[in-house]
């Protein structure tokens, strides 16, 4: 196989495990081949890094355009008004995230039972969300509570990761255990607005209002903002 085709297959993760072993062996034995591989990796990494920045910009634009699209469909407003309204709506959602959810109280007799979890909660309380995520990831057992605080930690990062926040909260909402389900539903709806999944977010808000569950008044305000 031509070297460039082989290297591209390696960079595109298209080699089988056996082929990778042979590739690595050749990389160690053949200096010219190794240099060719290294040069290709440098070019690939540079292009990939630049693209990822562009991709995230496109994702951000997609998120705003989805809300605009929703507003146009529901309120039949003109483009200019919709632009402003979409930005105002996202600001509202960001204000909700800025009001941090309280950390649960750890009872004295629980301290020695699960030190790692308490350590994660302490990090959450101190707003050290990266550390909280790291500690929660290390726990072997995942419960609704650990999923909830991990989801919120992703949401509260200085640069929030809405998809990973939603990933954890969805598991609570779609699961059959009720603990933290109402809270998770509320925060999940906010995440969905940020990931551009506006219809799903809207449906969750409607559920919150109709069931009068946690934060139903706030959910009503958001719905009103969107449809009135």
């Amino acid at each position, binding site marked *: 196989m031509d070297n460039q085709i082989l290297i591209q297959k390696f*960079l*595109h*993760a*298209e080699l089988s*495990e056996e082929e*990778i072993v042979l590739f690595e062996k050749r990389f160690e034995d053949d200096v010219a081949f190794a240099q060719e591989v290294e040069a290709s990796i440098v070019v690939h990494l540079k*292009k*990939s890094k630049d*693209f*990822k920045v*562009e*991709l995230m*910009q*496109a*994702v951000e*634009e*997609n998120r705003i355009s989805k809300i605009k699209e929703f507003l146009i469909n529901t309120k039949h407003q003109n483009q200019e008004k919709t632009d402003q309204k979409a930005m105002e709506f996202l600001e509202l959602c960001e204000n909700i995230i800025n009001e941090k959810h309280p950390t649960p109280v750890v009872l004295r007799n629980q301290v020695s039972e699960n030190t790692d979890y308490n350590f994660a909660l302490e990090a959450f309380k101190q707003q050290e969300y990266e550390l909280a995520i790291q500690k929660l*990831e*290390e726990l*072997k057992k995942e419960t609704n509570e650990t999923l909830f605080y991990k989801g919120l930690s992703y949401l509260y990062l200085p640069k929030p*990761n809405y*998809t*990973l926040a*939603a*990933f954890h909260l*969805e598991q609570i909402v779609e699961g059959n255990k009720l603990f933290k389900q109402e809270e998770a539903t509320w925060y999940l709806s906010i995440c969905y607005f940020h*990931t*551009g*999944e506006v219809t799903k977010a809207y449906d969750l808000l409607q559920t919150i209002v109709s069931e009068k569950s946690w934060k139903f008044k706030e959910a009503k305000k958001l719905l009103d903002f969107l449809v009135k």
Partner: protein
Amino acid sequence: MKTLSLKDIKRIENGDNAPLAKVYLENKSYCLLTLRKAQRFALQDIEDAYQEAIFILRTKIIDQKFENKNIASYLLTVTWNLLRNQYRRNNRVISLNGSEIELYFLDKIEEDTDNWTDEEEKKLQVIEEALEALSPKCQAFLRQYYKEGMSLKRMYEISDYSTYNSIKSTKCRCCKNFKKKLKEVLDKYYRPIHSNG
């Protein structure tokens, strides 16, 4: 979305990233959840690999080498392969064997650490963390045995052990625990698959 529309393929070929942003959002949860459930890869690693998979998709479309197949399955396969390769490399980098551990204690530990490679530093960190996880008695024993290069016979002569056999069994027990802790530390930081159990 099952396959990409011809219109989206054309847009991507012309450098428009909007269809890729849509693909990214629509398939991200599926890929994350499936890979997380199948193997407990770190989420951040899955996300990075998933972005890389989108980049590979774009490259293939631009090079007109993309066979328009089920997009979710394609991204899942590429992300999986990228993670597999990444973790395979990490595993290899810090694999440790018995003679290497002895070498670290006997030859390397007193050397100038400024000249160490990343790989050597990683290995030493693993060894030290595993050692610290042992009982103080085992720690002291292994340090004497490996680091100070003391023979078992000499250790018996200067210790409070009542019989030579008891010091032999201590060595056996401490080495066994040490190996177990080494495995745990390696699993914690470098292995791809973390068991749920």
